[in-house]
C-alpha cells in the first residue's frame, strides 16, 4: 500500500520532469538548427503570373549549393542560405517557365514570385538545370497529374474526370466498367482519403459511380499518394487523394463554358478587389431529364396521367480568398453536389385519383474556412475549420385522392435517411529552420455523426379517420477523432535524405477509446547516373468503414464507425524503389511494395443494405495482404506527353467467418495492369490524345457444382449451388482504347475548343459481370423442341461511345 501511495505522488512528478526534459531537448534542437553559421532566410509565395493563383510544389533552389525547398499547399516557401552579397535562386515548376532571380542576401528577404506559364508547343527554354527531379524527392509512391493533362485525356461521354485519370496510374484500379471509384494497392474503396481543400468527401461519385463529383474546371491540382505516407496524413489505410480547388484570378475576370453530351459547365473567376480578394464559382448540371421530358410527357398522356420522371446531378463549387496582408490570407470554399432520381405520377381521373411520388437523392456538402498566417519567415501556419455532410434520402409516397368523390385521401409514405456528418478543426505548421530540415507538425479534431439508416413510416386514411406514424432504424452514432503529427524532411547528407515522422490518433465512440501511434519513414539515397534508391515504411489506422457492395459505387454505401465491437482497421506498408530522370523530359520509377491489413470489414454472406437491424450484425472482420511491383515512365513536357504504367500485383483476403478462414483472392486482385496515355500537339490548333488500358479480369465468385436436397420441414426438392471458394473465377481480361481530338482556336475574346472522341474505340466487349443462364440449344433450328443448355453469359456495359463537346475559355 505504501509503495502504491508513493507511486501516486511520484508518477506525476516523474511525468512532468520527463515532459520538461523532452521540451528542453526539443527547444535546444530547434535553436541549434537555426544558429549554425550566419544565415538569412528568403521566404514568400510563388504564384501564377496571369491569375496570382498560388502554385503548389514549386521547386525553389540555390543552384550554387544545390540547397532547396518546395512550396507548400498554399504556395509558401522558406529557404535559409549563407550570407551572400549576391546569389541566384531558381524557381522550377511543370508547365511554367524556369525562372531565376538574383538577390542580395545580407538580411532576411521576403520574395514573392510570379511564374509565367509556357505557351509554346510545350517546349521550354532551359536556362538552368532543373531541380524538381524525381530522384531528388524523398516521397515515393506519389503521382501528380496536372489538370491540363487530365483535360486532354479522352473521357466517357466527354466528361473529364479527375478520379478516372488517377485510375490510369500504376497501382490504381477501377471498380468496374465506367466506374470512378479507385482501389489502390489491394485496398478497398473506403481506404482512400479523398479530400477537397482539406475536407473529406465521403461519396465521390455521381450517377451510380460513373462520374466523379470533381468538376475539372474548378480544380487546381490533384495529388495521389499510394504509400510512404507522410505523418501529416492519417485516417485511411491505402491512399490519399488531395484535390485543391482553384482560388480565383486576382488580376482579371475570366471563365469558361463547356457544353457536352450529358452536361454543361460554367466557371467564372476574378477579383472582387484587385490583388486583394478573388472568387471562383463553378457549376455543372446534367440535362438528360430535360431532353427526355417531351417523350416522357407523351407517355404519361397516353396513360392518362400527369407527372414527370428523370434523373439529374449537379455540382456547385465556390471559393473566395482574401489577402489581408503579406502575412495573412483567408480562404473559404464550398462544394455542394446532388444526384436525384424521381418519378411523380398522378391519375387525371377526378375520382379515386391515384398518385405516386418516388425519389432517391444523395449528395455531399462540404466547406472549409482556412487561415494562412506567416508567423515569421521560417514558420507558416494554416488553420482550417471543416464541414462535410453526406446524405442519402429515399422517399416513397403513394395513395389515392378524392376517394369515392368525397375528397377523402389514403396515403402511405415510407422514407429512408442515412449519411455521415463531420465537423472538424485542424492546425498545421510548416517550419523551415534551414535548408536541411522541413518540419511539419499539427493537430486535427473531427466530430463524426454517423447516421446508419432510419425508416420513417406514415399512413393516413381520412375516410376511416386513421393515422399512424412510426420511426424505426438505428440511432445516430457520435464519435470524436483526434490526431497529432510531427514530421521532418531531413537532408542528412548530400545523398541521403529522409522524411521521418509520427502520427498519433485517438478515437472515442460508445465510451470506448482507441489509440494508435503510427511511425512513418521514407528515405532516398542518390546513386550515380541520376538514379536514386528510395524506401518507405508507414503504419496506418482507420476508424471508419464503408459497408458497400464491391465494385460499384452505390449511394446506399454506408459509412459506419469502429465501435466497441468492430475494431479499427490497421495496416502497414513497406516499399522500395528506384527513380531516375532521363534527360529533362522523362521520369522513370520502379517500385515494389508489401501491405498487410487487419480488421478489414466486409458484409456477411447475403447481408444487404436496406435492413433495420444493427449493422454490426451484418459484418465480419478479417485480414488481407497485397504486394506487387509498379513501373512508371512519364513524359511531362514537350509536344508529346503522357505515360506508360505497368503493375504486377497480388491481393488476398481472409475472414474467419468465410469459408473457414481460407485465403482467397480479393475481387480486385489483378495480376497485370497496363496503361498507356499520350497526347500530342500536332499544331497550336490541333491536339490528339489516346489511352489504352489492359488488365487481368477481376476475380468473381461462380458456382462450380450443384446438388439437390429434400427439405425436411417443407418437403421440397431444392437445388443449391456450390461455391468452392470466394472469387474462384476470372472475368475475361479488360482492355479498351479511348481516343480524342481537340480543335483549339483563338478568338477575339478567348479560346474556343471543339472536342471529339470515343470511349472504347474498338468496342471491345468488356465484362461487367457474368452469370449462369439456361438457353435453348435448338434456338436456331426451326420447329425444334426446347433443349435446355446451361451457359455462362457475360454482360457488357459500354460499346463504343462517341462524344463531342464545345468549350470556350475567356
Amino acid at each position, binding site marked *: 500500500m505504501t509503495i502504491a501511495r508513493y507511486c501516486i505522488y511520484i508518477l506525476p512528478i516523474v511525468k512532468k520532469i520527463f515532459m520538461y526534459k523532452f521540451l528542453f531537448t526539443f527547444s535546444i534542437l530547434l535553436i541549434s538548427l537555426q544558429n549554425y553559421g550566419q544565415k538569412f532566410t528568403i521566404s514568400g509565395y510563388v504564384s501564377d503570373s496571369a491569375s496570382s493563383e498560388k502554385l503548389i510544389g514549386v521547386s525553389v533552389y540555390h543552384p550554387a549549393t544545390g540547397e532547396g525547398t518546395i512550396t507548400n499547399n498554399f504556395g509558401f516557401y522558406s529557404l535559409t542560405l549563407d550570407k551572400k552579397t549576391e546569389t541566384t535562386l531558381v524557381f522550377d515548376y511543370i508547365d511554367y517557365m524556369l525562372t531565376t532571380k538574383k538577390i542580395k542576401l545580407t538580411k532576411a528577404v521576403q520574395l514573392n514570385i510570379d511564374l509565367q506559364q509556357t505557351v509554346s508547343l510545350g517546349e521550354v527554354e532551359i536556362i538552368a538545370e532543373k531541380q524538381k527531379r524525381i530522384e531528388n524527392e524523398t516521397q515515393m509512391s506519389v503521382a501528380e497529374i496536372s489538370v491540363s493533362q487530365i483535360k486532354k485525356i479522352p473521357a466517357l461521354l466527354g466528361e473529364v474526370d479527375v478520379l478516372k485519370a488517377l485510375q490510369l496510374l500504376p497501382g490504381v484500379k477501377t471498380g468496374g466498367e465506367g466506374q470512378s471509384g479507385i482501389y489502390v494497392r489491394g485496398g478497398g474503396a473506403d481506404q482512400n482519403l479523398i479530400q477537397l481543400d482539406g475536407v473529406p468527401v465521403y461519396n465521390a461519385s455521381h450517377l451510380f459511380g460513373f462520374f466523379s463529383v470533381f468538376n475539372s474546371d474548378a480544380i487546381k491540382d490533384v495529388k495521389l499518394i499510394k504509400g510512404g505516407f507522410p505523418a501529416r496524413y492519417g485516417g485511411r489505410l491505402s491512399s490519399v487523394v488531395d484535390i485543391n480547388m482553384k482560388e480565383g484570378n486576382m488580376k482579371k475576370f475570366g471563365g469558361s463554358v463547356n457544353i457536352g453530351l450529358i452536361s454543361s459547365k460554367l466557371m467564372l473567376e476574378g477579383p472582387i478587389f484587385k490583388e486583394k480578394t478573388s472568387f471562383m464559382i463553378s457549376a455543372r448540371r446534367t440535362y438528360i431529364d430535360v431532353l427526355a421530358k417531351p417523350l416522357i410527357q407523351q407517355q404519361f398522356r397516353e396513360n392518362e396521367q400527369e407527372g414527370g420522371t428523370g434523373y439529374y446531378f449537379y455540382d456547385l463549387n465556390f471559393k473566395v480568398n482574401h489577402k489581408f496582408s503579406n502575412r495573412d490570407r483567408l480562404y473559404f470554399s464550398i462544394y455542394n453536389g446532388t444526384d436525384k432520381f424521381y418519378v411523380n405520377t398522378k391519375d387525371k381521373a377526378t375520382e379515386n385519383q391515384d398518385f405516386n411520388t418516388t425519389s432517391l437523392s444523395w449528395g455531399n456538402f462540404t466547406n472549409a474556412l482556412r487561415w494562412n498566417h506567416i508567423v515569421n519567415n521560417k514558420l507558416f501556419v494554416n488553420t482550417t475549420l471543416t464541414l462535410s455532410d453526406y446524405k442519402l434520402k429515399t422517399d416513397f409516397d403513394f395513395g389515392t385522392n378524392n376517394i369515392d368523390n368525397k375528397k377523402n385521401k389514403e396515403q402511405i409514405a415510407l422514407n429512408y435517411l442515412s449519411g455521415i456528418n463531420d465537423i472538424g478543426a485542424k492546425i498545421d505548421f510548416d517550419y523551415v529552420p534551414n535548408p536541411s530540415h522541413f518540419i511539419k507538425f499539427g493537430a486535427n479534431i473531427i466530430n463524426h455523426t454517423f447516421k446508419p439508416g432510419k425508416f420513417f413510416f406514415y399512413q393516413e386514411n381520412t375516410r376511416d379517420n386513421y393515422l399512424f406514424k412510426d420511426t424505426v432504424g438505428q440511432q445516430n452514432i457520435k464519435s470524436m477523432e483526434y490526431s497529432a503529427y510531427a514530421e521532418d524532411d531531413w537532408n542528412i547528407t548530400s545523398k541521403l535524405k529522409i522524411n521521418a515522422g509520427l502520427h498519433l490518433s485517438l478515437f472515442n465512440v460508445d465510451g470506448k477509446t482507441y489509440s494508435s501511434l503510427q511511425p512513418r519513414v521514407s528515405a532516398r539515397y542518390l546513386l550515380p547516373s541520376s538514379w536514386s534508391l528510395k524506401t518507405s515504411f508507414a503504419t496506418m489506422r482507420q476508424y471508419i468503414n464503408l459497408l458497400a457492395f464491391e465494385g460499384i459505387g452505390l449511394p446506399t454505401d454506408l459509412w459506419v464507425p469502429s465501435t466497441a465491437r468492430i475494431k479499427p482497421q490497421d495496416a502497414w506498408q513497406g516499399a522500395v524503389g528506384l527513380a531516375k530522370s532521363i534527360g529533362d523530359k522523362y521520369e522513370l520509377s520502379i517500385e515494389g511494395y508489401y501491405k498487410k491489413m487487419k480488421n478489414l470489414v466486409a458484409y456477411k454472406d447475403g447481408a444487404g443494405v436496406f435492413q433495420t437491424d444493427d449493422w454490426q450484425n451484418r459484418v465480419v472482420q478479417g485480414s488481407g495482404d497485397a504486394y506487387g511491383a509498379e513501373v512508371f515512365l512519364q513524359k511531362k513536357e514537350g509536344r508529346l506527353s503522357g505515360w506508360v504504367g505497368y503493375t504486377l500485383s497480388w491481393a488476398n483476403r481472409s475472414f474467419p467467418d468465410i469459408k473457414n478462414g481460407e485465403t482467397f483472392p480479393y475481387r480486385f486482385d489483378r495480376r497485370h495492369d497496363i496503361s498507356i496515355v499520350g497526347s500530342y500537339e500536332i499544331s497550336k490548333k490541333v491536339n490528339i490524345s489516346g489511352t489504352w488500358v489492359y488488365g487481368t479480369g477481376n476475380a468473381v465468385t*461462380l458456382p462450380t457444382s450443384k446438388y439437390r436436397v429434400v427439405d425436411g420441414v417443407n418437403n421440397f426438392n431444392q437445388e443449391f449451388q456450390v461455391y468452392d471458394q470466394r472469387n474462384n473465377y476470372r472475368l475475361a481480361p479488360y482492355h479498351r482504347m479511348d481516343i480524342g481530338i481537340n480543335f483549339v482556336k483563338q478568338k477575339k475574346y478567348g479560346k474556343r475548343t471543339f472536342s471529339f472522341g470515343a470511349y472504347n474505340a474498338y468496342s471491345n466487349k468488356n465484362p461487367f459481370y457474368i452469370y449462369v443462364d439456361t438457353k435453348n440449344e435448338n434456338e436456331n433450328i426451326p420447329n425444334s423442341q426446347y433443349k435446355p*443448355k446451361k451457359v455462362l453469359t457475360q454482360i457488357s456495359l459500354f460499346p463504343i461511345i462517341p462524344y463531342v463537346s464545345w468549350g470556350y475559355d475567356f
Partner: protein
Amino acid sequence: MKIINKFLMLLCFFTFLGCEDFFETTIEIDPPKYEPRIAINSVVENGDTEMIVVLTKSTGILEIEDNIDITLPGAKIDFKLNGVNITTIQERRFPAEGYYEIDLPSALKVGDKIEMKVTYPNLPVAEVTSIIPAIPTISNVKYQQDGGKNIDGSEVSKITFDLTSDVASYFRCDVKINSIYCRSFDTKNMCSNYDTANYAQPIEFTDPSVIDATFVKKSANDPRTKTYIGTTYRNFNIAGSSKGTEIEIYTLDEATYNYEVSKFLYYQSTDNPFATPVNIKSNVKNGYGGIQIYNKFSFKF
C-alpha cells in the same frame, strides 16, 4: 480537314458496328473444375422410430440434370446409433431411387448419437455425425392478442417467453392459429391464403440475432435465462376461435440451425449480381446436405 473527316467517319463506322448485339454475350469457357460428391438428406424428430435418408450426387454447374441421373441407388450405408451398428436399412424405389429407410431399435431421444457413412462408386465417402440436442427450459410463455401495431400499421399479437439453458441453444418458432398456418394476408390484415402445414406464420422477434423471423440462437455468452419478445400478425377472420393460438417451437442442433440460416441467406442473394454468394452450410464430411434434427413442442393459448 481531311484528318477530321477521316476521324469522324471512323468514329461513325465503329459506333454502328460496335452497338450490334453488344450487351449480352454467351461466353464459351471450360466448365469450372469440380469433384462430384454425395449429398445426404435426412430429417429426424425426437421420438422417431425410423429415418428416411435420401442420397443424391452433385453435378457440374453447366450440366443439365435431365441428362444425368443424380440419384444414388445401391449405395452402401454404414449406420450407427449410440455406437451400435444398425443394419435394418432398406432401399425404396418410391418416390424415386436413392431413398433409404432405416428402422431404429428405439425411439430417438435427447442425447442419442447418430453416425452415418455413405459409400458409392467413384464418389468420395461421405460421413456425418449428429446428436439429438437437449431441450432447453421454456417458461413464462405469454400470449397477448392485442399487442399493438406493426411498422406497416397492421395489428399484431405479442408473445413472450423465457428460455433457460447452460449451453448454446438453437430453435425455430412458428405460430398457428386455429390449427391453421396463414400463408399471406390481404390489405386489411385478413388471412387470405391458408396452408395446413409448412408455411408457418413467423414471429418478429425484437432480438436482432433472430434470422428470417424464425431462427433463434441463444449463444453460450447470453444470460442463462433470456427473455424473448416477439410479435405476430393478429388474425381476425377465422371462424370459431375455439382452437386458439398455438406456438410451435422446434429446438435444433447447431448444424441444422446453420443449414437453415445459410439457406435463408442463399435465397436472399439469389439473382443479385452484386451480392456475395452464399454456400449452404453442411456437417457432412466430404459431402453436402446433412441430417436435420428437430425437437418439436408447442404451447396452446
